[in-house]
């Protein structure tokens, strides 16, 4: 009886917690630490990046054509900015049950084939994607280190031409990181993009 009562209380508390956490990060918000499994089997935390200037978090996946279209550009962002203190951390939030091409093994295969030199983490519980308010892939959150906190400085898409990188004339993520590197305000801190909706678990 006691255990039943306890589980009921737990359920109610969980319900309250969930209801309270429906608001996702907004621009300027501090981001809570998270710890997710990388394709190499090791755990990676946001706090591992404390010595840098920030992190480019990209919710991404294997299966979405928009993710595939942006794949080389994401690799390029890490090549350009990791050495300047803004490395890329890619997170796959898709439920592998609904999107088998996004399983851990498939993620590892893509990372190997494309020679990822940045983490590609699996958000199996989808808690990190929910916390960030990520809705589609790829969905970028540029975080700026502020004291001991990471604060959201940019939310949105990579640039303004999914189909053709060379035709993109608004490079939102690069512009945001360049501004942060110069301690300037980000001119366009929020954008939207068509993308594949995250494959959420069936509740």
């Amino acid at each position: 009886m006691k255990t039943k009562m306890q589980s009921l209380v737990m359920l109610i508390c969980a319900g309250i917690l969930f209801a309270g956490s429906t608001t996702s990060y907004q621009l300027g918000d501090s981001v809570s630490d998270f710890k997710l499994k990388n394709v190499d089997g090791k755990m990676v935390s946001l706090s591992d990046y404390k010595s840098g200037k920030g992190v480019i978090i990209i919710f991404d996946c294997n299966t979405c054509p928009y993710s595939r279209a942006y794949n080389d550009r994401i690799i390029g962002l890490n090549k350009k900015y990791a050495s300047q203190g803004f490395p890329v951390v890619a997170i796959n939030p898709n439920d592998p049950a609904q999107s088998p091409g996004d399983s851990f093994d498939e993620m590892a295969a893509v990372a190997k084939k494309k020679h990822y030199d940045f983490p590609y983490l699996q958000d199996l519980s989808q808690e990190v994607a929910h916390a960030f308010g990520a809705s589609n892939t790829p969905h970028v959150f540029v975080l700026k280190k502020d004291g001991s906190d990471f604060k959201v400085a940019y939310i949105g898409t990579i640039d303004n031409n999914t189909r053709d990188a060379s035709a993109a004339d608004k490079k939102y993520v690069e512009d945001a990181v360049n501004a942060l590197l110069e301690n300037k305000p980000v001119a366009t801190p929020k954008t939207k993009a068509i993308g594949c909706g995250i494959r959420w678990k069936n509740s």
Partner: protein
Amino acid sequence: MRKPVFLLCLFLASAASAQQANVIKFDKLQALIDAKSDQVQVINFWATWCAPCVKELPLLEKLNAANDPTVKVTLINLDFADKLDKVNAFIARKNMKTDVLLLDEIDYNTWIDKVDKSWGGAIPATLIINPKNGRRKFLDKELQEGDLEKLIAEVK
């Protein structure tokens, strides 16, 4: 050499009896959203590569096939414009009857907010407008059986 010709003939033959997608710019979609019509406008955003979109298409086809004079269904396709042939082949293969407009606007930030401020850009998404009373509903997730009828009833 023969095979491509045969495939082309097959494609043309099937295309002749099915819908073709018309390529539009945002002004045409804006006109549809602002239409002063007596019909409830059901506008669905989809792409051939989007699995949940393809899954819900039969619900929109069924609504269109009901021929309700008070409802107009339009499918806004978001495949890249250079994939028009692929879209038309898809329409023919699925024998779709609903009007399909391929929106050729790659700079998404210039128009997403004009469809609905709450839309993050993920598809599928469905906009339902009753021009007569200005009521509108926006759903940015996969439609379930009965959702369309419920949303239409809510704007009437």
